[in-house]
């Protein structure tokens, strides 16, 4: 087993074990903090796959932005004494069966295919990604910038308190 493989298993455990916590933890704060480890593990997987820019973006945007937003939402909408309120409905068992079924079906499909085992060359990704975004993927890039503007305005409009009733 090479070092890279060992790192893969470490990151896989770092993604899946806290992932289980996110799904089954009764305490919302624990779930949110478990999500931190899952997202960091995914960033590690990106680095293993040679996507250095994406790994850094994952840490910056997901952990630095989205996770902080989620934590803010958790603390904003839960009364402190209410933090351990049950967060799981009685549908839990059926949902677990559904999840196991989905996982089994996907795994069976994945294992039935002979995937390429060799890897492409690795190189720094920032420059080629920038070139792609401004040439081949220019249209989605522009659309996503419009979307971000819409989100910026929409979040303010939706989230603001009604002044007059």
């Amino acid at each position, binding site marked *: 087993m090479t070092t890279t493989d060992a790192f893969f298993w470490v990151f896989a455990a770092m993604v899946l074990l806290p992932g289980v916590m996110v799904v089954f933890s009764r305490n919302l704060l624990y779930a949110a903090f478990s999500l931190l480890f899952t997202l960091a593990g*995914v960033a590690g997987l990106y680095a293993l796959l040679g*996507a250095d820019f994406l790994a850094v973006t994952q840490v910056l945007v997901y952990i630095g932005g989205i996770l902080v937003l989620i934590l803010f939402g958790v603390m904003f909408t839960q009364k402190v004494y209410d933090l351990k309120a049950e967060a799981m409905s009685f549908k839990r068992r059926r949902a677990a069966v559904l999840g196991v079924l*989905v*996982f089994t079906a996907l795994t069976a499909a994945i294992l039935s*295919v002979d995937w390429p*085992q060799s890897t492409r060359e690795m*190189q720094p990704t920032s420059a080629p990604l920038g070139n792609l975004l401004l040439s081949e993927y220019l249209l989605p890039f522009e659309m*996503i910038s419009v979307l*971000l503007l819409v989100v910026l305005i929409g979040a303010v409009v939706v989230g603001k308190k009604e002044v007059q009733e």
Partner: protein
Amino acid sequence: MTVGLQHYLILSAALAALGMIAMVSRRNAITILMGIELLLNAAAINFVAFSRYGPSGGAPQFGGQVFGIFVIVLAAAEAAIALAIIIAIYHHRSSINADELQSMQR
């Protein structure tokens, strides 16, 4: 057994299944949002893994990583809007229990 493409695919399948369980079984709207984040991450892992594996020594392909960036941006946009909606609902009803939010079903 060396780690190959199928390991990444199975890992992301497991992550997607976890996200799906969270989306279906949780009551709190914020944990449903966390489940969606898990699903989006699983999809992004697939994109990046497919951009890495291919013919040996072949020219690098970055299309998958571009889509990884798009997934991250969309996740950020979705989280911002969803939390704004959740907080607006909380102002109105002092609860974000998704099972109680049924007023649009009638």
